[in-house]
């Protein structure tokens, strides 16, 4: 270990594709640290005796020790430490909101103009190093003979599957779509998370002995009760958030109005951005995206790459956008126009039933509301029309109703979210666990992974106590 730490106040910048260039392609924006940058950044970690960063990680990765391995240039060793806690390191290194998790706790980030250690960037470096250099395949552990079913091959399901497989369980994952990955393949765009990386993470799980069945809709093709009849001893439901929300304003069903889910699914899962795709998508001149979350940023940046001028319409201020700062920053760099403190009131259509404009009202900030943020209130008489030929609604989703409809005794709340204990994922049905967006409503990849992890632990304890 080097005698001296790197005491520079700011973290090493992430090498990225030039904004002008990347606005025209779907290749990954952030290029990743070089070995040199990674070593330099690793040296900023002080190895606190009581590392707060670990507390900030939903899956409790042993952060100081994996960084210590980087300093020793033992990158495979670093990978193995991360892999113990996370089944999807290359994914987390890219899409986790580290600034509000591990990095928010880092002592190096305390004080003005000081930045935390770039933990996420180092995680990505290690995961990519492993993918490019390691030839070792994960080995299927000795089976303990117990069968567990996982519903949904998204972040929570894959994490739960990985953890249980490592413990020797016979794990089967059932996925409704034709590809495993959930939001990682249908939602998050290629330029933020290349699909080959998701594919490799899924292959790692298959090497661990996990069976993945695509084209299988639990609740329709097979019900949860039938899974138990088939000898599965526990079921984890990570079916995700589904049904998109709309505003309920006039003109929302005009042609050219998409939910963000539809726009992203067409673009990402069905590869509509490639010229020879069989699945169509609107190639528009001016697109407005309504919403301020990560999904809104993803949809906006996809639309930009498909050749449009893109506006983001958001009813609050830019500081209050729930999207990651980095995503907002990237979107701004690429030339996306932010119409904040604006709210759509009506979608306008042309004589062919296609959207031709959106009527927007300006907003101002009033008193704080229940969320603690200042409530946006319309400015009377401030309506104006923004001419557009495509509108994308990124207002969030509510959980998929299929499992709830077809599983007796599985309790859900008023929003349709499955009721599950936070620490274990236990639901109202014995042996049925749940986590991720199906429980919380639309949230982040890493929170879903954390829930999958906790449920795996709880399922292991449940099976052990049942078979005592």
């Amino acid at each position, binding site marked *: 270990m080097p005698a001296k730490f790197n005491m520079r106040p700011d973290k090493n910048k992430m090498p990225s594709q030039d904004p002008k260039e990347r606005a025209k392609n779907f290749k990954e924006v952030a290029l990743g640290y070089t070995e040199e940058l990674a070593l330099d950044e690793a040296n900023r970690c002080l190895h606190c005796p009581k590392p707060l960063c670990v507390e900030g990680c939903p899956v409790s990765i042993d952060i100081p020790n994996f960084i210590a391995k980087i300093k020793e240039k033992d990158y495979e060793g670093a990978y193995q430490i991360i892999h113990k806690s996370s089944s999807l390191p290359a994914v987390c290194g890219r899409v986790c909101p580290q600034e509000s998790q591990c990095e928010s706790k880092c002592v190096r980030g305390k004080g003005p103009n000081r930045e935390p250690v770039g933990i996420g960037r180092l995680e990505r470096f290690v995961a990519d190093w492993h993918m490019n250099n390691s030839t070792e395949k994960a080995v299927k552990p000795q089976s303990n003979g117990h069968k567990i079913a996982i519903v949904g091959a998204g972040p929570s399901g894959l994490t739960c599957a990985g953890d249980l497989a490592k413990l020797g369980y016979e794990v089967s994952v059932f996925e*409704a*779509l*034709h590809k495993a990955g959930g939001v990682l393949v*249908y939602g998050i765009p290629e330029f933020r998370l290349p699909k080959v990386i998701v594919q490799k993470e899924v292959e790692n799980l298959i090497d661990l002995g996990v069976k993945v069945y*695509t*084209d*299988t*809709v639990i609740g*329709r*093709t*097979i019900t949860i009760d039938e899974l138990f009849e088939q000898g599965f001893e526990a079921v984890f439901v990570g079916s*995700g958030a*589904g*049904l*998109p929300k*709309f505003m*309920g304003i006039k003109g*929302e*069903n*005009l*042609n*050219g109005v*998409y*939910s963000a*889910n*539809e726009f992203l*699914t*067409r673009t990402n899962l*069905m*590869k509509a951005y490639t010229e*020879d*795709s*069989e*699945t*169509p998508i609107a190639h528009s001149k001016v697109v407005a995206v309504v919403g301020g979350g990560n999904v809104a940023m993803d949809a906006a940046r996809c639309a930009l790459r498909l050749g449009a001028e893109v506006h983001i319409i958001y009813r609050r201020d830019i500081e209050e956008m729930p999207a990651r700062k980095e995503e907002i920053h990237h979107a701004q760099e690429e030339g996306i126009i932010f119409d904040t403190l604006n709210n759509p009131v009506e979608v306008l259509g042309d004589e*062919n*039933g296609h959207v031709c404009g959106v009527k927007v009202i300006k907003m101002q900030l009033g008193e704080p509301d229940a969320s603690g943020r200042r409530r946006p209130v319309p400015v009377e008489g401030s309506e104006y029309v923004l001419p557009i030929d495509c509108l994308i609604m990124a207002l969030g*989703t509510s959980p*998929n*109703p*299929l499992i709830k409809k077809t599983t007796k005794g599985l309790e859900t709340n008023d929003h349709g979210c499955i009721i599950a204990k936070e620490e274990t994922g236990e639901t109202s049905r014995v042996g049925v666990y749940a986590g991720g967006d199906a429980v919380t409503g639309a949230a982040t990849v890493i929170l879903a992974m954390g829930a999958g992890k906790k449920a795996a632990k709880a399922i292991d304890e449940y099976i052990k106590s049942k078979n005592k």
Partner: protein
Amino acid sequence: MFKIVRRRDLNPTVIMMDIEAPLVANKAKAGQFIILRVDEEGERIPLTVAGTNKKEGTVEIIFQVVGASTLLLAHKQVGDYLQDFVGPLGEPSEVEGFNKVCVIGGGAGCAIALPVARALHENGAKVTSIVGFRNKDLVILEDEFKEVSDEYILMSDDGSAGTKGLVTNALEELLKKGEKFDRVICIGPLIMMKFVCLLTKKYNIKTVVSMNPIMIDGTGMCGCCRLTVGGKVKFACVDGPDFDGHEVDFDEAINRNKMYRDFERKKYEETCNLFKKEVK
């Protein structure tokens, strides 16, 4: 991968196939649909289940060649495999507890109307089937319909098969004669379903239609298949595909189905040319 075990060409553009998919066959009920992809790069195509053979583990689909993807599918033969086949999706049709029902099918929609007529018949209802086609060359499933119907009325636009006229003409005639139906079930082109609903509204007969909007995932995720029903947004894939026809906003649905017409035409021509080249 899912094997094609049987194929029958019903008319020049409508093809019936039996696909080996035991899990789907075991569950599918009349009115539900499946989604298939022909190959790794294929589009997700929603098709209503036309029938099942649980013993064999096969699902029958009937499709009309309307675009590039269905043209690709039409080039598959017995023994070939489909990349993906998932289902059953959507809610099954309501088929129990009726005395007398009128089932109306239009064109390729008859393929979907038939399993509903069959299920009603098996549940003890008296079934009047009214089916309509453009001309005699396009008539499909005549024997199959007759088998499950107490009355079978064939209509054609040009009079070359059955009676000349539209399905609405036949229905109105029955209603004028005083025929009473507990329910009308209508499956076919949107414009036909719209006019059947306008007619049955006059006679105050509850009418169920099967909607076939553009879909992607078909499991309640993308919202592409949304419709306005009774003033509310509904998703055909999880709330339907059957809806109360008197509540459906047909004009909006007709418009939404046109969204990708130009793209679809272009792709269709490209695919046609591709096959022509192969033949040379």
